[in-house]
């Protein structure tokens, strides 16, 4: 009789723990992974590397906000650096698929010609065109 109960309890425990594992798998892991890629998120003191037409570009900011899979927003002091230019600005929006970045805040750019200060910029990276807005001062290295 005692053996009968022992076997039943043992079987019950096995089924119970398997059930918990199935519960964790379906109701915890899978949905969380799915939601993570879709939801908006933010990271502080962020830096990363992206591959664009200009080559490897290092990006960083005080705060990164992921708007969706195609758009990110670098909030606060931010930068984009690669072999062609170094952009130091604030509140920079980046469209990842189109490789377009822009900001309406003052920006400082360093390239192989000199140092440029402007009131904002828009960078069409895959076209190799960077537009600086407002009053622009470009000091050229002699």
């Amino acid at each position, binding site marked *: 009789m005692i053996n009968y109960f022992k076997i039943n309890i043992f079987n019950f425990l096995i089924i119970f723990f398997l059930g918990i594992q199935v519960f964790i798998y379906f109701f915890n892991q899978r949905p969380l992974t799915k939601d993570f890629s879709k939801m908006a998120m933010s990271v502080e003191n962020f830096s990363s590397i992206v591959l664009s037409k200009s080559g490897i570009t290092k990006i960083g900011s005080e705060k990164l906000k992921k708007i969706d899979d195609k758009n990110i927003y670098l909030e606060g002091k931010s930068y984009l650096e690669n072999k*062609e230019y170094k952009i130091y600005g604030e509140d920079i929006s980046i469209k990842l698929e189109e490789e377009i970045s822009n900001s309406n805040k003052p920006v400082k750019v360093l*390239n*192989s*010609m*000199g140092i*440029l200060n*402007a009131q904002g910029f828009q960078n069409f990276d895959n*076209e*190799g*065109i*960077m*537009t*600086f*807005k*407002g*009053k*622009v*001062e*470009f*000091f*050229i*290295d*002699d």
Partner: protein
Amino acid sequence: MIKILFQIIFLIFFSIAHSESFVKASDSLIWDSENQNYTANGNVIFKNEKFIAYSDKMIANYIEENNKEIFTIVELFENVVIEFKDEIFKGNHAIYTRNNNLIKLTGDVSIESPTRLLTGYELIADIDNNKRILNSADKDSLVEVLLENDTNN
């Protein structure tokens, strides 16, 4: 001693400030790295080691040498004013080529200096050889060679 040191530092900074080249614009500046040019719009000021120029628009082509960008041709559009030493060149359009230091102005062209004012429709200023060629409506060609010993401008 400290006073002299400060004066030397001031002179160094002053000379650096006056020798620097720059482009300034009030509206926008476009850097096209594919076609290797810069386009500046609105109250443009361009300064290099030779002259200072003002215009409404500027397109400057460049080349890359030893990982550095160097302007080769600078084109200025509308209300062009170029100040070179004590001379002022004016025109509707100007093109400067760096390799031979030539400035060619077209449109309503004038050369203004402390002693004279000459007008015409085309001016070619050869900076290295200190030579000016002004084509005016009255004469087919008027050539003026500035009589200075120092031709190394």
